[in-house]
């Protein structure tokens, strides 16, 4: 049987830059970190609230808080409830 003239493109070449990103870790592990992630979220939020608006640490902490919020939301936990 001859080789098909047309075949689906290799997924790598549909988005090579995405496929070049290293593969690390597993999202299935996230659930086991729920308690510590939630604790870090609460800790960061409290620290952030204790800082004045001019504090240079604020932007960095806001970035970390946003990351933790996204993870908790993905875990179907609303951190603000």
């Amino acid at each position: 049987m001859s080789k098909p003239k047309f075949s689906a493109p290799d997924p790598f070449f549909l988005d090579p830059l995405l496929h070049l990103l290293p593969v690390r870790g597993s999202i299935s592990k996230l659930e086991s970190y729920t308690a510590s992630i939630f604790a870090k979220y609460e800790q960061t939020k409290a620290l952030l609230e204790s800082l004045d608006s001019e504090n240079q640490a604020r932007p960095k902490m806001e970035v970390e808080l946003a990351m933790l919020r996204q993870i908790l939301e993905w875990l179907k936990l609303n951190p603000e409830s």
Partner: protein
Amino acid sequence: MTDEAVRRRRPSEILKRGYSDQEIDSFYALARFSLETGNLRRAEALFRGITEAAPEYYPAWLGLAYVQIEAEDFDPAVYCIRQALRASPNSIEAMLYLATVLLSTQDYGTAGSYLGEVGDLLETTSVDVNVEKFYKIQLARYQNR
């Protein structure tokens, strides 16, 4: 450590100490999965957070570069890729990212240098066949400029 020493540290430094390598790997896995499923907003928030919490974790810098390339923000993308290379100087993926972006911004001289480095590394390093093909495509872009 004394209470006074703890008080002297900036709050974000205290926080960084709380993440294990496994946690960072899992955060990154969720960010990469978010890219695969088209949720760039979530991916960006996660990649930014990881680069803040673990600046030496080069895959997150590359992920952030990917988000910026998608938005055609090439200057910030180059910054992120250079940060990835600072953390992992021999990363073939990071060099290919940089060469690809530099070819898009028509910085052919620097792109050629990085493609040369990738070529040298590929002679001694075993990589996925698709990575090698992608390198050859970028080399062809460079040669046909």
